[in-house]
C-alpha cells in the first residue's frame, strides 16, 4: 500500500537579513493512511514548518511532498488553496475560530467553498458538531465557549469536509489538563473509528503517547522512529 504522505529530499530555509537559515534538511518521510503521527522536537527544530509544508501552507526549497497521490509542490497558489479546501483539515493551538461567528457558522465556513446546498451544509455541520459532542452549543460564539469547547469546534471545522489528512499544531498547547485529555481522546477516536490520518506537532509527551508513531526533529533533521502500541 502506498503511503498517503510521501516526503522526499525535502529542504526548507528562511531568509534572515541577507543570509539563509536552513530549517529542514533533506527530510524523507512516509506516512501511511490511517496513521496518527506525532512530530516532536525542541523549539525551532522545524516541526511546524514541516507540518505547514505537508499541509500546503508554505513552499519548499527542494524536494517533493506528495499527499494522496498529488505532488503539492508543483501546485500554484490558487491550486494549493483549492486543494487545501478539500484535502486538509487544520487544528491550531489557539483554535483560530472567527470570533463574530457562532460555532455552527465557524464549522460551516469551509463548506462555503464546496458546491453544497444550504440544507446539505446544515446536515454536514450538525454531523460534525455531533461527533465532537457540541450540538447543544452550536449557536454560541467562541467567547462564550471554554478553551476545550473551542478546540472541539475547531476539530469539527477540520473534519466537516471529510479531508484526506488532519494536521494539528500543538492542539493541546493552550488547554488545561482535563480539556487537553478530552481533545486528545477525540482525535484518537477519529483516528481509530474513522481511520483519519492525523499528523500532530506537540511538545507534550502525554499528547505524543496518544499517537501511534512519534518522530523527532532536531535542528531540521528527522531522528529515530518510536512506534507505540495504541493506547
Amino acid at each position, binding site marked *: 500500500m502506498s503511503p498517503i504522505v510521501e516526503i522526499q529530499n525535502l529542504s526548507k530555509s528562511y531568509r534572515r537579513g541577507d543570509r539563509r537559515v536552513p530549517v529542514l534538511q533533506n527530510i524523507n518521510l512516509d506516512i501511511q493512511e490511517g496513521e496518527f503521527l506525532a512530530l516532536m522536537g525542541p523549539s525551532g527544530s522545524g516541526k511546524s514548518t514541516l507540518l*505547514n509544508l505537508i*499541509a500546503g*501552507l*508554505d513552499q519548499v526549497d527542494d524536494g517533493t511532498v506528495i499527499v494522496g497521490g498529488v505532488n503539492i509542490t508543483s501546485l500554484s*497558489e*490558487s491550486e494549493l*488553496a*483549492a*486543494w*487545501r*479546501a*478539500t484535502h486538509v483539515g*487544520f487544528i*491550531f*493551538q*489557539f483554535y*483560530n475560530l*472567527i470570533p*463574530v*461567528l457562532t460555532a455552527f*457558522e465557524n464549522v*460551516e*465556513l*469551509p463548506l*462555503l*467553498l464546496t458546491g453544497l446546498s444550504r440544507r446539505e451544509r446544515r446536515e454536514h455541520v450538525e454531523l460534525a458538531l455531533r461527533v465532537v459532542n457540541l450540538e447543544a452549543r452550536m449557536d454560541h460564539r467562541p467567547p462564550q465557549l471554554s478553551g476545550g469547547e473551542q478546540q472541539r469546534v475547531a476539530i469539527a*471545522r477540520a473534519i466537516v469536509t471529510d479531508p484526506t489528512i488532519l494536521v494539528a499544531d500543538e492542539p493541546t498547547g493552550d488547554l488545561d489538563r482535563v480539556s487537553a485529555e478530552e481533545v486528545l481522546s477525540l482525535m484518537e477516536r477519529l483516528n481509530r473509528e474513522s481511520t483519519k490520518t492525523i499528523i500532530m506537532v506537540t511538545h507534550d509527551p502525554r499528547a505524543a503517547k496518544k499517537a501511534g508513531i512519534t518522530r523527532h526533529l532536531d535542528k531540521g533533521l528527522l531522528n529515530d522512529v518510536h512506534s507505540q502500541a495504541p493506547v
Partner: protein
Amino acid sequence: MFILKLLFKNAFRHKLRTSLTLLSIAIAIMAFGLLRTVVSAWYSGVEASSATRLITRNSISLVFPLPLAYKDRIRQVENVTTVSFGNWFGGIYIDRKNFFPNFAVDPKTYLDLYPELILSPEQRQAFLRDRKGAAAGKKLIERFKWKIGDLITLQGTIFPGNWEFVLRAIYRGRDENVDESQFFFHWDYLNEALRKTAPSRADRVGFYMIGVDHPNNSSNVVQAIDRTFKNSLAETLTETEKAFTLSFISMSEAIIVAIQIVSFVVIGIIVAVVANTMSMAARERTWEYAVLKTLGFGGWHIAGLILGESLLITLMGCALGMAITFPGAYIFKKSVPMYLPVFQVEETTLYLDLVAFLGVGILSALIPAWRAIQVRIADGLRRIA
C-alpha cells in the same frame, strides 16, 4: 446570505469606531450634497430661462442705458412678438441686509413675456391699474410678512430718494426653478419721477426683453437687432436669455469653481477616513485572513470581504447622509433665502452621492485588500502566537 451576515458582523465589531466612521461619511455626504446644491442653485436661473426670449443691452456694459425709442424699432424686427423693458432698481428695504432683486418694468408686456409668473386675474388687474403698484414673489411676501395693500418704501441707490409702492399682486412660480423672491413695479412711475428730478436719465432703459416667435429664429433676430443699432450712439448687444444669465454667473465663476473643488475635497477626506478604518480593521484581522486562506479561501475572497465591508459601511453612511441632506438643505435655504431663492436638492445630486459612495467604498478598500492578499499564511498565523 452567510457572507452578508459576516460583512455586517465584521462591520460592527468596533461599534464606536464604525459609528464614528458612519457619522463622518454622513456629514461628508451631506456637505457634498449641499455644496452641489449651491452650485445647481446658482445655475437655477439658467434652467428657468426660455429659448424664445432675448435680452438686449448696451454693448459697452449693462450699466449704460439704452434709449426708450429703440422699443418700436425692435418691435419691427421680423419674428419679434413682444418687446418689454426694464431697469435694475437696486432699492433697499429698511436695511441693506434685507436685499432682494427689484426691477422697474413695463408691467403689461413683462407679464405677457413671463407666463411662468402666476398672478390671480384680480391682482394682475389691480397691479396694472395702479401706477404706484408693485408685485412681489411669494417667498418675499412670506419673508417680510407683507400683505396686499401694504405700503412698501424702498430707498433708492441708483435712483436716489425714498420710493413708495403699494403691494397689489403676489406671484408664484409655475415650477420650482422660478425665483419667487423678486419685486417689480411700473417703469412709468420711475420714469415720471426722473423727468422731474433728473431729466437726463429719463426715457432710458437698462435692458429690453424680447419675445421671439420660435427658438429657431432667435439667432436671426439677435443679428437683426444688433445690426439695426450698429454705429449708433448706443450700440446694442443682444443674446439669448440663457446666455445673458450665464454671463452673470460667469462673473462669479471663481466662487463656483471653488465650491466644486471643496465638494470633491470633502469626498477625498472621507476616502482617507474610511481607508483608515478599513486599514485598522484589516490589520487587526490579519490572522483571520490567514485562517481563511488555510481553509482554502483565496486572496480574492479576502479582498471581496474587505471590499464588501467597505461598501457596506459607506453605503450606510451615504444613505444617512442623503437622508439628512434634505433637512440640511431646508435649514440652509431658510438661513439665506435672499441669495439662493431656488435651493432644492436635485436628483442629479443624489446620483452624484451614489457615485461618491461607490468611489469611496472601492478606493478605501484598495490598499487594505491588497495587503490582505499579499499576507503569507505562515506570517498571518504567527500574529496569533
